């Protein structure tokens, strides 16, 4: 088991944002967190990533406790977080965005660039342009590619297809599906048809808690069936 979250509670001040969260993830698996706005999906990802400290419970990554670790330590352990807002370092060039991610991992910059060009060959002409000129889809691909630098063990991706056109969603879905089996992922996603194509298992979240775990592929593949649980 790669990731195990046990009895996790998270507070924002006095308000309880997450209560009694229990989930697990095996190596190579993709699990999707699904739920309405405010269900606590992003809060859960941020807690695993180290941005929030749980008030109770544990997070085990590769059997080691990581709750309370600072984000940079979590990142260096092999967990990468792709934020929802698709914000790159806009005043840096695309190449500099990639270089910045490569240095802490000791991966060669040339290898990192190759990795991203494998995902999106058209990025080649944009390498020396400022990242603020990238479209939403290009930013998302850059962010996912950047998160893959240094061969992480776990990706936490927050709403990868939000606000993107159908064509770009398809490209990003292809990228994620290609990574399946090689890389474990926890993905927050509202688009149920995308969930149906990506997920091995689905956790439905409601009001800060896990409402249901779905591991039946037949149910997952039908987005209508998933919607019934929301």
């Amino acid at each position, binding site marked *: 088991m790669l990731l195990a979250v046990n009895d996790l509670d998270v507070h924002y001040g006095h308000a309880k944002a997450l209560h009694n969260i229990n989930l697990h993830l095996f190596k190579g698996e993709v699990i999707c967190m699904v739920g309405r706005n405010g269900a606590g999906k992003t809060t859960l990802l941020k807690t695993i990533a180290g941005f929030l400290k749980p008030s109770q419970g544990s997070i085990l990554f590769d059997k080691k406790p990581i709750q309370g670790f600072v984000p940079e330590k979590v990142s260096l352990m092999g967990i990468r977080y792709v934020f929802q807002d698709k*914000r790159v370092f806009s*005043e*840096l060039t695309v190449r500099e965005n990639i270089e910045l991610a490569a*240095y802490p*991992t000791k991966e060669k910059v040339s290898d990192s660039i190759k990795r991203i060009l494998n995902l999106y060959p058209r990025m080649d002409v944009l390498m020396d342009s400022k990242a603020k000129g990238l479209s939403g889809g290009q930013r998302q691909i850059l962010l996912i590619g950047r998160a893959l630098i240094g061969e992480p063990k776990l990706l936490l991706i927050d709403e990868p297809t939000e606000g993107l056109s159908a064509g770009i969603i398809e490209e990003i879905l292809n990228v994620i599906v290609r990574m399946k089996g090689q890389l474990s992922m926890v993905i927050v996603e509202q688009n149920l048809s995308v969930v149906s194509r990506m997920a091995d298992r689905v956790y439905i979240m409601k009001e800060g808690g896990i409402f249901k775990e779905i591991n039946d592929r037949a149910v997952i593949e039908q987005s209508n069936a998933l919607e019934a649980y929301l």
Partner: protein
Amino acid sequence: MTTKIRDSGALGVILIALGFILLGSATSIHRTTDFIIFCIFVLGFDLLYGHMGRLSFGHMLFFGSGAYAAGLLVRYTTTNPLVAILVGICGGALVGAILGPVVVRATGACFALINLAFNQVGYFLALVAFAKFTGGEDGLSLTFSNIPFLNIANPKVFFGLTLFCLCLTYYFLKRLTSSPYGILLRAIRENETRAQFIGYNTYRYKWITFVLSSSISAFAGALATINYSYVNPSFIDPTRNVEVIFAALIGGAGNLYGAILGGVSYMLISNYLARYIPRWEMFLGLALLVLVFKFREGIWGNIISVWKSRTQTGG
């Protein structure tokens, strides 16, 4: 078609050296030496403000630390000016290293004001608490020895020395800001949280940058002490922080040429305009308003923008 001129640092050094030699010929060597020392100070300040995005209202503390460290050394031990410069830099670095762990945890207005607070403390120490050693309000009058190959009493020689120091500082900062370290600084400026999540201990890098900035500012302070052959509380006066901030804004923050251009512009305004306009500070205030609202990138930033738009349109 876009024309790109790549500056590895050597080109900048040549341009800066030629520029100041011309300026010295056109004005006076002694005044230009003042300009050069102030430009070193602006470079130190801008490393923190322009490149890392942290505005300090108290950088005179480090300028003054360097000045007083050099001055106290000369008053009480050796009169060697090169040793005085080295001790001045170390003095500023030490102050930066001690205060850094507290200061760099703050951001925004807190950062600015914490630095101001420490500057006030430093000013008090120099003016009152340690007056027995620092000379209090009168300061210390100093005599520097001449080194066999370096007669600093000769204004031209000292001009050459300070110009060398400016070129050295520029070259060092050019290499630093063009390196991966420079990329990280800009990332911290833009979004520190994201930089943390890529795997950087941003606190460590902020502290290192703070110490570098304070060291360079102290370098300028030590040179100023030699230039004037005295040090007094005006070298650490918190009200003078506005000078370096104005200079960075005028020239264009986050750019080495901008810092130097801003330093020269500010000194030209304060040294020459003051002769013709009694309330020259008002002119400076108005200039700053125009810059903030109309030319946010400063003089150098706007020159670059115009250059880029002309080369891209082929005009």
